[in-house]
């Protein structure tokens, strides 16, 4: 099943223990991912549960949840090929 921006937001809420509906696409990533351990955990979940491979060096360049979602959505087809 293809991910959507909303689904990615829900994954981010779960990984970073945020209340459901508490973040949106404009939320700064640093407000939810407290440190690099959070980032790597998010990447490991995308890989294991959704078969999406993300480069940590790329994801740390993004600043908002929307940019995370855009990055992940642009990589989900690449990862499955």
């Amino acid at each position, binding site marked *: 099943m293809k991910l959507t921006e909303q689904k990615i937001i829900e994954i981010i809420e779960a990984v970073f*223990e945020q209340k459901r509906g508490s973040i949106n696409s404009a939320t700064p990533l640093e407000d939810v991912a407290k440190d690099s351990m959070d980032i*790597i*955990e998010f990447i490991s979940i995308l890989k*294991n549960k959704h078969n999406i491979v993300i*480069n940590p*060096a790329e994801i740390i360049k993004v600043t908002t949840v929307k940019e995370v979602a855009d990055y992940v959505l642009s990589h989900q087809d690449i990862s499955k090929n």
Partner: protein
Amino acid sequence: MQLVVVSSSYLSDKVVEEEYFSSDELTYLSGNFQGNKLRDKLLGRIAVKHSVSENDFKKVIIQYNNFGKPVLDISSMFCSIAHSYGLGIAGAAFFKIGVDVELIRNHEESLLRSIASEEEISLFDEENPDTIVTKIWVMKEAVSKALGVGIAYPFTDMKIEKDKKDYSVIVECSKWFAKVFLREGYVIGYCYPYEEIQKRIVKITYLQ
């Protein structure tokens, strides 16, 4: 080697800020960080200032190189800073060092498998998998900081070994002595090059 651990209760006294920070440094920090992020930045900086000076804390200038690694104006010393959820730590020495701290919290099992092999996981006796993953993370992150390689360097390319009670981390051609310990729900860790093991007098100061 000096390791300093600073808890958030130490910051409750406003005088502490005035003792450690110049007005320029405070203005910079409060202008760029807010809330818990500012608190943790202050804790990390207090820790590193305390690790290299006995009382002239304001004069310790912390800068960051192009890779985001903290460097001191005392060029002969190496330092490393970390903070996590209201605890700051720093280490300073005349050889390369790395430190890290993490609050033990719930993690998906996939995180452990993404940073460690089965062989490495078996080196830890804890029953709680969140403690194991945090210990392994802190150990490898400390080495990552000592090397100055950051998040992009895969933790699976680092190998933890254990000799009796001592842990070490192998990265390419280098070997690092690594130590982790628990304190009030956090895992605190530090590392330094294995060849410096004879100098392993580590003084730990707690400010709270």
